[in-house]
């Protein structure tokens, strides 16, 4: 009887923490749909109920308990912006775009040649040695052990890091203006990068130690923030970064060059008294650019030869699906669409592509010594109340952190 009860309450526990999943091919649309709540870490344990047949052929429901969150890496070329849940997926996965500059292609071709044409010993001397690789692997292995050890006492979404300039970061992102919901996603991404960068450097960072539990919080430095912001140039983009770049450098400037009047087709006729008159035969209802015009401009501005179809598939359809541009049928040429911007620009974290610094417009939020000291007030106050037996202490590693 006891076994029967046991059997009824039996669940399978699947541990997903500390797992890196690499999807080397474009994953099915449904896969990300089912993973949404899990990769959002909505709760630590999630139940998955499904129907299954027993040995006796009876159909019943079974429950699997999924614990933790795997870290997902996906690769793909094809445009998936038309998918119904694309925006949700886009918010959860940060874009990584390999460099495709001419210099990169030349150096990559050289490396491909070396990989095929050199014997191991030569490759080790000319490119990278096996001993160096092994040493790097050893360091990464120690790093993973340390991260697992540090996270043991933490709950889901707990960073385990002390950051003293979060208000400054938030202000540097919104700059006091209305930037929409995407601002929260960008803030979350900055904090996640900053957290992990601080943690991989935890041995050379000062830390707050909880003397009761042994839990410790490495303290983020400006050096960590700089590293995080260097990555955010790519990671803050709502669109794939090359699409955002094309929109800002080709589409918007070309659209601004258009006359304010709607394009029209006119015909010259003679009036009753033989005077010449222009009559409008057809007139566009919208001001916009055609894909043919944009293909020509892409070549002129970016020096990228691209077909009309290529412009549509690579840039215009994704932008239209994301609601960044409008697409309307041309009245004059029914086989063409006219494209016009919905917004003046797409969100950009930095004013200049080559300068990864946040601008703090409010002097009261500039992260100076006073602001940082203020951030430790809660701990100091708590310690004073607790008397001699402090609940935490700050340990410096000798690293200069401000």
């Amino acid at each position: 009887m006891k076994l029967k009860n046991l059997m009824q309450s039996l669940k399978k526990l699947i541990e997903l923490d500390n797992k890196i999943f690499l999807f080397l091919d474009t994953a099915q649309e449904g896969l990300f749909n089912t993973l949404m709540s899990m990769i959002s870490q909505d709760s630590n344990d999630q139940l998955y109920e499904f129907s299954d047949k027993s040995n006796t052929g009876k159909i019943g429901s079974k429950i699997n308990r999924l614990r933790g969150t795997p870290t997902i890496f996906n690769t793909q070329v094809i445009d998936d912006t038309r998918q119904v849940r694309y925006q949700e997926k886009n918010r959860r996965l940060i874009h990584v775009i390999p460099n495709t500059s001419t210099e990169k292609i030349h150096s990559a071709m050289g490396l491909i040649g070396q990989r095929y044409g050199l014997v191991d010993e030569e490759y080790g001397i000319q490119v990278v040695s096996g001993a160096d690789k092994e040493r790097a692997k050893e360091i990464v292995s120690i790093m993973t052990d340390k991260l697992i050890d540090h996270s043991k006492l933490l709950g889901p979404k707990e960073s385990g890091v002390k950051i003293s300039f979060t208000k400054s970061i938030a202000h540097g992102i919104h700059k006091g203006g209305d930037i929409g919901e995407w601002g929260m996603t960008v803030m979350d991404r900055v904090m996640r990068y900053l957290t992990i960068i601080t943690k991989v450097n935890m041995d050379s960072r000062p830390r707050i130690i909880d003397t009761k539990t042994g839990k410790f919080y490495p303290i983020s430095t400006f050096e960590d923030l700089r590293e995080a912001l260097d990555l955010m140039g790519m990671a803050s983009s709502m669109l794939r970064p090359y699409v955002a770049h094309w929109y800002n450098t080709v589409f918007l400037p070309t659209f601004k060059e258009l006359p304010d009047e709607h394009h029209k087709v006119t015909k010259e006729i003679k009036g009753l008294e033989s005077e010449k008159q222009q009559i409008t035969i057809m007139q566009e209802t919208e001001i916009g650019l055609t894909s043919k015009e944009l293909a020509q401009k892409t070549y002129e501005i970016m020096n990228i030869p691209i077909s009309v179809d290529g412009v549509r598939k690579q840039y215009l359809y994704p932008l239209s699906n994301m609601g960044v541009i409008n697409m309307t049928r041309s009245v004059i040429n029914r086989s063409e669409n006219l494209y016009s911007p919905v917004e003046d620009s797409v969100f950009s974290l930095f004013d200049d592509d080559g300068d990864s610094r946040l601008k703090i417009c409010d002097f009261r939020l500039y992260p100076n010594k006073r602001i940082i000291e203020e951030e430790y007030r809660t701990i100091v106050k708590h310690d004073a109340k607790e008397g001699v037996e402090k609940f935490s202490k700050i340990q410096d590693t000798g690293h200069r952190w401000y």
Partner: protein
Amino acid sequence: MVTSYITGDNNDNEDIQKTATVEEDESLATEIKITNEDLKFVIDTMKKEAPSDLVSIKQLLYGMASAFTKCPIHHSVNSRKTGAGKTHDLTLVSSYFPKKYVIVLAGMSDKALFHRHGINVIVDENTGNTMPVQPIIEDLKSKIENLQGDKKKNKKEIEKYQYEIEELNAKSQKVN
């Protein structure tokens, strides 16, 4: 790798040895300090095989490291055209992580993740805590063994338990 300090010739001792070695490895790892130079060395070594993709390499390195924290960072590697080096960067960085943590998939069906290998547990309804079921089954098995002292008297009871254990095991195997 640290060698074990416990010696012995039976299976129990071997298990203790393994546990001790793992624990020792972990504690050793936490004692070793990773310096800024060590991290720079890792990135420089990775960069040698993808010199123009430093930003991508760093994004992937920190992203993969985040798998061992409670704040994972998921990434999607994409490009305008095929052949830009997406898979190269991804496999390059992942090759530096211990194999046991990296699962490389050519594809995955919608629900496959929900049916991965796991351990059977029962859940305490009050606390929500989970307990592995296998030790409980083992315990019941030993009780059956005890009942076998007087087989005739306990025959029905023993058969019932055996049948239920078989059913339980069969079910677990089928799902796994």
